């Protein structure tokens, strides 16, 4: 181990480094879990990324990992690595709240598929991470429990909806985390917290055990410090699952090995619609520098057009709210979740349980979604949005006739102050560069590409072709190798 690397505390190392250290017996899984638990105890009062945590359970998992390794039965690079979960992904016998009063006391009776796969890989599951209620929001301020601070400036938001997942990783409270992304909920917080966040192609990762928000858009994906780490976690969670009927039968490559095999140069497209009004000049400049880097590496850079970009936001808010209104109909106070104590009959029970259990943003989206699906408006809103969705997807596929991937900003603005955005429409505009990807079902990641003058992280978004995550990760790693943003950590 190099002197420089050993100076990095355990809780800020990468999966790749720690896997090597664990294999070499330089550190045990229990020591690693203890380091992460101690770090969380030290910084949680300011960051508040966790909804709950079970240190005793994590230490027991770590001890089991050490026992496997001692017996010569270590399971690979994730064995003994602490991974935090967004509180919308089911882990058996752990709380599963969606950061909502509705599920404040819910304990999951089963594992999500991604959970089962990470357990099988030997990961140490630690922490239920805060998010916007039912994953609806872009700042994690919609959590029913508490806001989360951005580790780079705890008076600012970490982004959302997977804000706790991004903040916990950036603060050294996990070695990797999982989030979910419906309109940018992995990539935008990754950008705002200075970490790597990947939304896989729709259908690559099973949604079984993910609390549903908008089923045709939701995907689970990893937050990591490096692209290589992302490839490692993705490899563990990707693949067909018969319990998710939209799960795709794609061949899953060894993403980590493919990183070394794919060297470019690539053709990268710059969608001109993503560099217009509303883009923070410092972010624009940082992304331009990333583009210049690729050009200097021999990549061909082409301007492309995604002409329906201006309709993405509206299309998204029709489709996502419509699906949410349907998905959240299950929370009726009967079989699980909050039940109102003062209902006079069964119908009143529905009305009051939902009124008491849901927060304002969830109610707003249920109302909007119910409206766009209601009699007389279905064709004008929902059906039309689904047709525009086809056009949005065709825009991307047309661009991919010319280029391998697209490069854009992830978020139009850096981390903003807690409480700064009170208007829902202003909050929705945080997602203008990320939602088209969900509507088109594409893979995309956010990668750190610099800092603002006030030391807030900036992310660049790379958008890949369907099921070509291996190329997307390789393109990202080419940039990462030429820069050392990942060496910076926040002062906490």
């Amino acid at each position, binding site marked *: 181990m190099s002197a420089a690397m050993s100076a990095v505390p355990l809780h800020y190392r990468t999966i790749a480094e720690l896997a090597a250290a664990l294999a070499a017996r330089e550190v045990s899984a229990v020591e690693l879990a203890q380091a992460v638990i101690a770090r969380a105890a030290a910084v949680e009062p300011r960051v508040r990324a966790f909804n709950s945590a079970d240190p005793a359970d994590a230490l027991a998992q770590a001890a089991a990992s050490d026992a496997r390794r001692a017996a010569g039965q270590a399971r690979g690079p994730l064995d003994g690595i602490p991974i935090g979960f967004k509180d919308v992904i089911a882990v058996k016998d752990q709380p599963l709240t969606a950061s909502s009063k509705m599920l404040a006391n819910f*304990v999951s009776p089963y594992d999500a598929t991604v959970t089962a796969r990470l357990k099988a890989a030997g990961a140490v599951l630690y922490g239920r991470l805060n998010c916007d209620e039912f994953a609806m929001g872009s700042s994690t301020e919609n959590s029913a429990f508490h806001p989360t601070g951005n580790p780079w400036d705890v008076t600012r938001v970490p982004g959302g909806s997977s804000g706790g997942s991004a903040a916990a990783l950036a603060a050294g409270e996990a070695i990797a985390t999982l989030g979910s992304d419906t309109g940018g909920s992995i990539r935008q917080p990754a950008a705002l917290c200075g970490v790597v966040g990947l939304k896989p192609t729709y259908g690559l990762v099973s949604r079984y055990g993910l609390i549903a928000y908008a089923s045709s858009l939701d995907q689970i994906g990893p937050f990591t410090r490096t692209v290589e780490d992302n490839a490692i976690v993705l490899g563990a969670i990707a693949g067909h699952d018969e319990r998710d009927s939209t799960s795709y039968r794609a061949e899953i490559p060894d993403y980590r090995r493919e990183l070394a095999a794919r060297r470019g140069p690539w053709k990268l497209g710059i969608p001109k619609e993503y560099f217009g009004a509303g883009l923070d000049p410092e972010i624009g400049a940082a992304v331009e520098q990333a583009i210049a880097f690729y050009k200097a590496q021999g990549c061909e850079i082409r301007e492309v057009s995604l002409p329906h970009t201006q309709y993405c936001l509206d299309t998204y808010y029709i489709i996502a709210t419509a699906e949410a209104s349907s998905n959240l109909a299950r929370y009726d106070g009967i079989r699980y979740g909050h*039940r109102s104590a003062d209902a006079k009959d069964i119908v009143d029970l529905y009305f009051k349980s939902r009124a008491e259990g849901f927060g304002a943003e969830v*109610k707003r989206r249920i109302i*909007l979604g119910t409206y766009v699906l209601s009699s007389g408006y279905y064709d004008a809103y929902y059906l039309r949005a*689904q*047709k525009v969705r086809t056009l949005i997807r065709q825009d991307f596929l047309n661009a991919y006739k010319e280029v391998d991937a697209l490069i854009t900003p992830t978020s139009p603005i850096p981390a903003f102050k807690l409480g700064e955005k009170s208007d829902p429409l202003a909050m929705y505009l945080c997602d203008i560069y990320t939602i088209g990807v969900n509507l088109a079902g594409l893979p995309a990641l956010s990668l750190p590409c610099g800092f603002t003058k006030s030391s807030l992280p900036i992310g660049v978004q790379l958008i890949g072709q369907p099921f070509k995550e291996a190329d997307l990760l390789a393109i990202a790693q080419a940039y990462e190798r030429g820069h050392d943003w990942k060496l910076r950590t926040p002062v906490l």
Partner: protein
Amino acid sequence: MSSAPQLDIDHVAKLARVALTPEEKATFAVQLGSVLHHIEQLAKVDVAGVEPSAHAFAVHNVWQEDVARPGLPADQALRNAPAQRENMVVVPKVVE
């Protein structure tokens, strides 16, 4: 969709089975009014002859073998029930 329709918040809240306070109704009506106004621009898109897409990657006819498999045991299925008795969920009286 040519002129922005007024969202009848009482009617929609009833459809959604959510009780809203007068304050929520007033706030949501204004906020959703501006969202709906924004959404109006979708009317400008020419969608003639365009097929709607429900999913990015349509997967059709997903079949599973009809084989019995263990499910959640009753105690686990009822673990989060707000009220239960004798392996059943207790609900308010539905029929007088």
